[in-house]
Every structure is written in C-alpha cells, then in structure tokens.
C-alpha cells in the first residue's frame, strides 16, 4: 500500500545520470607581463534597449579555454514612476547578474547574491561620475549587465594568493556598460574603461616549492585566472582617459604603500591605468564602428564592418 500523503519515487527505479567529465581548460600560450589579450566589443545588439553592447575576452579564444562574455543594455533616460520622489538628477541604477550557467563547475542561483550586489554597487559608482546626470532631471537610467561566461577564479582568497576573476568581471562590466551608454547617446563627460593589473610571483622553472629564495613579483597587465602563478595582490580601476581621472579603485592582497617605503600600490595602479587606457582605444573603435555605419550613407564607400580587435 503506497502512502498517498507523500510523493513516492518511481516503482522501477532510475539510474543516476552520468555526466561527461568537465574538459580541462587548455593551457594558453604564455604572454609577456605587459601584453594584453584581444577584446571583442560590439554595440547595438539588443534591439529593444536604448543602448547595448557585447564584450568577449580574449577573442578569438581557442576552443576549451575559459573566456569572459558580458552583455550590457541601457534603458533610459526614462521618466521615473509617479510614485518616486522628485530628483533633480537622473537616477542611475546598475545591476550585474551572473547567468546560472556562467561559472565553471558550479551553477549559480537566480536570486541576487552578495557578490552580485557588491559588484553592482561598484559598477554604479564607477559610471555615475562620468554621466551628466544633471541633464536629465526626474528620469532613471537603468544599466543591466549579464555575465554569460566567466573565467573562474571566483573563490575566496587564501594564503596562496588572491583571485582576480571578480576583478576581471568588474573591469569588463565597466567597459561594456560604457560602450552601451555611448551607444544610447546619453550625455557623459567622458567614457570610463576598466583595467586590471596584478603583482604575480611565478615559480621558477624546475625550482623547489620550498625554496627559500622566492622570485620578486612582477606587475602583470590584464591578468587571467588561467595564467597560473601566485597572485600576491591585484587592483582594478575605472579610468576616464580623456580627463585623466580615476572613478573607481579596488585592491586586493598585501601591498606596500608609499608611507611603508614601497611603491607596490603605485605600480599596481599605474599598471591598471595602462590597461584601461588601452581598453579605451577598443571602446572608441567599437562605438565608432556603429556610428560610421550611419554616416556611410552619405559616402559611396561603406567604412567599418568586421570585428574590432585590439592589437
């Protein structure tokens, strides 16, 4: 007699599902510490949004290697609902969400977690300084970022060093959101681009892990969690290249500041700014590509087209 009050299992039993093993990430060819990965950035891909963009890093990525894929869509400036209190500036909201399938080895929930909320606030702080919010009173500008794929490196930090995965996501999100803002034609004083730099200690080839003489860490621009090596400390900046202003700085790990007699913080910041300046060139090219498409009507020759790649 089956119990009607509980949900019974199937009578004939099932076999557990066997998944194919997760393919191991391929080792990428080593990069020079100051070499940046190529970025793919394209705007106006979400038709209903006022402005939108898609970012992929690195591009082209060999199959099986982890990549960072982000989409950004901007809605607005649109009128705030009548219930909202009066605001003389535009209200900017940024929302960053990881897709459930975005992280390797682990599915993420649909409800916003603490990491997503933290990144959203940082993103909002990085962007709000660039947008002329006073030009749009009583309106709201909503920015939505969806992380479609990320490179991993999202676990907590341990004695072995810090993880740069979240920093890469944030830097990518800043760049992607700026491209979408420019695509939407919202007035802004400058475009913000994100850049990451890290102090990485690479194990000497064939050396003993217990070797007392550890090599000095070097500044690596645009570090990837797949690169290997022990990341001692890392920094991400939101940088307005036209005005030479930093809108956001987030650092992790142990570093010596100037008053402690070291220059590690300055080195990291300079590295991150160098990355962000280079990323700004990609940002400009991506925005230009869409604009030229509209201008091409007046010339016989069609310009632009094709991927925007950073060399």
């Amino acid at each position: 007699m089956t119990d009607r009050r509980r949900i019974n299992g199937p009578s004939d039993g099932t076999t557990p599902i066997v998944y194919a093993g997760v393919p191991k990430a391929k080792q990428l060819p080593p990069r020079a510490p100051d070499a940046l990965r190529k970025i793919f950035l394209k705007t106006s891909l979400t038709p209903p949004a006022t402005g939108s963009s898609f970012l992929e890093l690195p591009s082209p990525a060999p199959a099986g290697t982890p990549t960072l894929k982000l989409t950004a869509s901007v809605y607005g400036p649109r009128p705030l609902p009548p219930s909202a209190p009066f605001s003389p500036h535009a209200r900017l909201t940024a929302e960053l969400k990881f897709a459930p399938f975005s992280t390797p080895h682990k599915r993420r929930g649909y409800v916003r977690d603490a990491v997503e909320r933290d990144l959203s606030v940082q993103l909002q702080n990085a962007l709000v300084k660039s947008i002329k919010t006073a030009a749009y009173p009583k309106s709201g500008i909503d920015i939505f970022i969806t992380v479609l794929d990320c490179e991993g490196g999202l676990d907590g930090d341990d004695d072995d060093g810090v993880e740069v995965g979240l920093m890469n996501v944030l830097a990518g999100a800043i760049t992607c959101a700026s491209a979408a803002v420019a695509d939407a034609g919202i007035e802004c004083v400058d475009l913000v681009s994100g850049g990451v730099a890290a102090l990485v200690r690479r194990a000497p080839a064939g050396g003993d892990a217990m070797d007392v003489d550890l090599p000095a860490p070097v500044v690596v621009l645009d570090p990837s969690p797949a690169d290997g090596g022990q990341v001692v400390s890392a920094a991400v900046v939101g940088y307005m290249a036209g005005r030479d202003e930093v809108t956001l700085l987030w650092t992790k790990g142990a570093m010596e500041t100037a008053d402690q007699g070291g220059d590690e913080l300055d080195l990291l910041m300079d590295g991150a700014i160098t990355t962000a300046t280079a990323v700004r060139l990609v940002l400009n090219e991506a925005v230009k590509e869409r604009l030229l498409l509209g201008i091409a009507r007046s010339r016989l020759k069609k310009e632009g087209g094709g991927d925007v790649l950073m060399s």
Partner: protein
Amino acid sequence: MTTMLLFPGDVVPELPTPQKTNTALKVGPGLTYTPPDKVVAHRVGELHVDDRKCAVWMEGNGKRYIPSLNDAVIATVLRSTSDSYILAIPSSTSPAPASIQALLPHLAFPQATKKTRPILHPGCTVYARVSLANKHMDPELECYDAESQKAEGFGELKGGMVFNVSLGMARRLLGDGKKIRQLQLRARKAEGTEAEGGEISNGMEVLEELGRVLAFEIAVGRNGRVWVDSEDTKVTLCVGSCIQKSEYLTGDEQRALVREALRKL
C-alpha cells in the same frame, strides 16, 4: 573631406573663426563650452563646423528623443484633463507608457475657443509642435504654426499608419541632410576636390523617388515616428517599409530600392 568623429571628453580641435567681429560662436547640442576657448564633446557623434554661421554641432543617431523647442513631433493622446490633453511623445524604441509626457492645452489649436475645440480621444495620433521645452518641466505642445497662427498641417492625424525610424533618419527626412550636404559640397569646393569622393546623399532620395510615382500623405516627427496615409493600404505599407529599409543606404541604393518596391507593387 574627412569625417571628424568625437567621443565624450574629446576637445573640439579647431573652432570656426568669426568672419565679422560681432558674431558669437553658436554651440549646438552634444557640446559644452568652457570659457575662454574650450569646447568639449559630451556625446558620440560626427562634428560639423559651419564657418559662415560660426556654428559647431554634433550629429549623432540616438534612439531616445529629448524634446526641444519648435520640433515637430508625432504624439499619442493618453487622456484629457479639464483644460488640456495629456500626450505621450514616444521615441523609436520606447512604448507609449514609458515615454515623455507632454501637455497639449485645449486652446492650442487654430481658432479654438472653449466651445469649438477639437475633441481628441485617447489613442489618437497628433502632429504637434513643441512650444515649451525645459528639462525641469513637462514639455508643452501646440497644433498651430508659430508665425502664421494657422494649422499648417498640425493637428490630429486621421487614418494612415505610424512607422518607427531612428532619430537620425527622422532628421534627414525633415531635410537636415540637405544642409549637411551643402556644407560638405562647400568644403569640397574649398579643397578643390569636387570631382572626387562620389555623390553625397541628402538622405531623402527615397521620398523624392516615391513621391514621383505614388500619391501619399506623410508627416515626420523628430521623435523618430513617420505617419503615412494614402488611398490604398498597399501604397501606405510600401512607403513605410521603403523608408524603414533606407536607413543605411546611399542615394543610389535608395533609388534602386524604391524602383524594386514599385515593380512589386
């Protein structure tokens, strides 16, 4: 002539020098002037400099319409209050409820009195002129021409169909492309390269070509809406789709598109 593209934060490299001493520099949308001689771009776009009028402005292609004075727009009636209609000015992407709301006073029609005012029902399409545009207040509309005080085509649009285009396309359809074309021709003349660079489109070839063969009525709103009406629904749809398709086409391609569409009609 090369196109000059500017990004937010870029400084305008050379400003036009006034030909007469008393002409002031006119700074158009998308640019901000910082005394004494710095003009910074705040939007992505193509920079245009008119030396004769001593003006600089940015030409971009947004999707969101921001009302400005004397713009002709196509708006939708939402409801009526005791002394005015509430209208929505939709942009090319936003649906009516999420758009800017505007006021159209009951008396803002030619020769309207309290007793003889046109009755507009919710959902009506109206072609109107922006009479008050201020970022802190809701815009106000009028259905008559500012100079002649006559309708001049403004008022309710009966029948027909409304099509969406981008804001840049709407501006070109209203003839802004012609001005820019003249500027470019003048620049070419100055450089002595008239024969090179091919034809410059004014963005309106599609309308000129359609108007030569078909009979239809059209109203273009700067908010990226185009209203088309004709005796035959087929003609209305043909005109609308030709306009929507010609956004990224050169003058010759636009003519070819229209010829193809007319052949199928």
